[in-house]
């Protein structure tokens, strides 16, 4: 991958997260679920990187490793701090992470489970500030009011509890909480998939607007390719714990280089009855990350698979500037994308 670029905010190198499978009375480890298996990518400051894939592909695990909600099995995660230092998040312990916490925050999928029902809006949005040193209550009240206004809620709601709000409103509260400590990197894990269709656009607009205004960097984890396309500058595609492709959004959608990416895009039903989609069918099922096939993990389902795919795992390489793919046949295949 490229050398430490000045505009990089985060660079992930060879990240692995294995979950041991334990069995029996003595809880012996009999195998590993390779949730994230040797993943490398980077995020530039101010951009949105989309991380897509089907359920169980490891995208959520990867994002939680970056925030160090999980301890990675191995790999490096270099983060360029506000002060201009490069630190490896993978090597820090709980105490070492604390000063960095304000710089990276998260927006959750579930607007119900992510807000403590026993705390008022003021306590929820104000807590990150409080634990990071803003102990003056009056200051916090003012700041929470600002944040609520910023995400489109009325400051008077501060004394209310989450149960008084709808899903979309709660998601706004979650965003306000994430922004309260002026983060640079925001990891959004499926931020709109639990919301009603008519509310999704509100949240997407808000996120785009806030990014522009506050120069935020997003890691946008999602399974909905339309939403990802709408909001991301670059997109990385995961399959069974591995990255299969990463490219600028338009390039990826127009000319995917990995058969899985192409199949994924062909499967998206387009909301236009005149455009018939879904005619190419991806056969078979996703293999288990506890017991993946040899060679390229995608080969049992791939119509272009040749012998080398069955034995040799492909390398994740840059085939054109900024376009990474892990496919043996990437150079020779011409795959259909989405007409733009």
């Amino acid at each position, binding site marked *: 991958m490229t050398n430490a670029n000045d505009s990089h905010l985060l660079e992930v190198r060879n990240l692995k997260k294995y979950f041991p499978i334990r069995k029996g009375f003595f809880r012996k480890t009999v195998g590993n679920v390779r949730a994230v298996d040797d993943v490398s990518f980077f995020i530039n400051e101010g951009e949105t990187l989309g991380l897509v894939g089907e359920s169980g592909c490891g995208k959520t695990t990867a994002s939680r490793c970056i925030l160090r909600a999980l301890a990675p099995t191995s790999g490096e995660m270099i983060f360029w701090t506000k002060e201009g230092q490069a630190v490896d998040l993978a090597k820090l312990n709980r105490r070492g992470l604390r000063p960095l916490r304000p710089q990276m925050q998260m927006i959750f999928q579930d607007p119900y489970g992510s807000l403590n029902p026993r705390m008022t809006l003021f306590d929820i949005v104000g807590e990150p500030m409080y634990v990071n040193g803003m102990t003056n209550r009056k200051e916090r009240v003012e700041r929470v009011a600002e944040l609520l206004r910023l995400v489109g*809620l009325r400051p008077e709601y501060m004394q209310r509890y989450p149960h008084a709000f709808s899903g979309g409103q709660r998601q706004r509260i979650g965003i306000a909480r994430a922004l309260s400590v002026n983060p640079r990197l925001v990891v959004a894990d499926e931020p709109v998939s639990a919301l009603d269709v008519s509310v999704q656009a509100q949240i997407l607009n808000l996120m785009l607007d806030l990014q522009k205004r506050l120069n935020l960097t997003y890691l946008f984890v999602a399974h909905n390719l339309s939403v990802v396309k709408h909001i991301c500058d670059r997109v990385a595609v995961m399959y069974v714990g591995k990255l299969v492709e990463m490219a600028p959004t338009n390039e990826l959608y127009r000319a995917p280089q990995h058969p899985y990416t192409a199949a994924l895009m062909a499967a998206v039903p387009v909301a236009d009855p005149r455009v018939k989609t879904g005619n190419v069918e991806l056969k078979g099922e996703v293999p288990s990350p506890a017991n993946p096939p040899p060679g390229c993990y995608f080969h049992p389902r791939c119509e272009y698979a040749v012998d080398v795919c069955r034995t040799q795992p492909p390398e994740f390489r840059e085939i054109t500037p900024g376009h990474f793919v892990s496919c043996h046949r990437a150079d020779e295949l011409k795959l259909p994308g989405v007409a733009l």
Partner: protein
Amino acid sequence: MTNDEMTSAKTKNDPVEEVPLGSVFAAKAEERVSVASNWKLVWWRFRKNKLAVISALVLIAFYIIVLVPDFFATQDPEATEAKLAFIPTQGLNLFDGTNFSPWVPAVVGKRNPVTLRMEFKIDETKKVPIRFFTEGFKYKVLGLFETNIHLIGPQDPKSADWIYLFGTDRLGRDQWSRMMYGTRTSMTVGLVSVILSVIFGVLLGGISGYFGGWLDLIIQRLIELLQSLPTIPIWLAMTAALPQDWRPEQVFFAITIILAFIGWTTLGREVRGRFLSLREEDFVLAADLAGCSRFRIITRHMVPSFMSHIIASSTLAIPVMIISETSLSFLGLGIRPPAISWGVLLQEAQNIQTLALAPWLLSPGIAVIIAVLAFNLVGDGLRDAADPYGH
């Protein structure tokens, strides 16, 4: 981001939401409900359960007795008078004709010419008037000051007309007064042993659930071991092992600890389970990512989330403790005379012949049933109300 930017910020696309709140509550109570804390919501739901509220009042009454049993007692519970054995219960009448003027019928004794024993009968024609706040034997209120005022007593404390609301036992001791003292012991044993259980359970279950790993493994195995011991026989063996010459207070505390020792496992498991599931909750992760300390996460986010459940479970555990104490004492292996508990009192009712002669000796059993029933109803009410968010 600077404050200037923030204040000038105004979202263009999304107008500030003015839409009615999409809450699960009816529209009218909206504002009140919006700012209602969890405990308020629990209370509002609990309040709807009339049976539970009534039971709670019953329990409050019981615990008032626990605080000042002497005030409710009519006689010294230890005063024996062999001549006055097996006096039957007197019914308490609140009205004399239409006037409020409580009285009890007098008791008349006659020696049975065949058995030569005194036999007592209720004489409904003779009324013993009752007065409130009368003077009687001296006692200390909560160990603070001495008084001799009792809730009720005969009009003239010097007269020979004593009142025996629940009759007397084989030694002529007043059953009502003894029950007041028994209430103190039994209700306290239940409460204290559950509090101890909760402390053990929350501590060990919390450690097990939050930290996991080998600590969890050890505590889990310990709980399994304790749970596979046969409870009642082990209780008996432990209480039998208490030295005979211990003072009543020592025995009392020993019994409490023994009950708690075996009782904490259930609560410990529950706490562990709650911790395990809470650890996976997004709001706990959010607190972690915000940079909260472990201590803050546990005390601000996790413990408050299951506190109402623990209170409900504890309420349901108290009656189990009460029944256990009563059973142990009834078998002669729990609280020992001269201390008085419901179980000790019921020992007097073990002999079926005696019981046939003096069925009122079962009255402490009725108290047990009422107390246990009330705890169960309150506990169920709390459990149903404990989760206002319906997870």
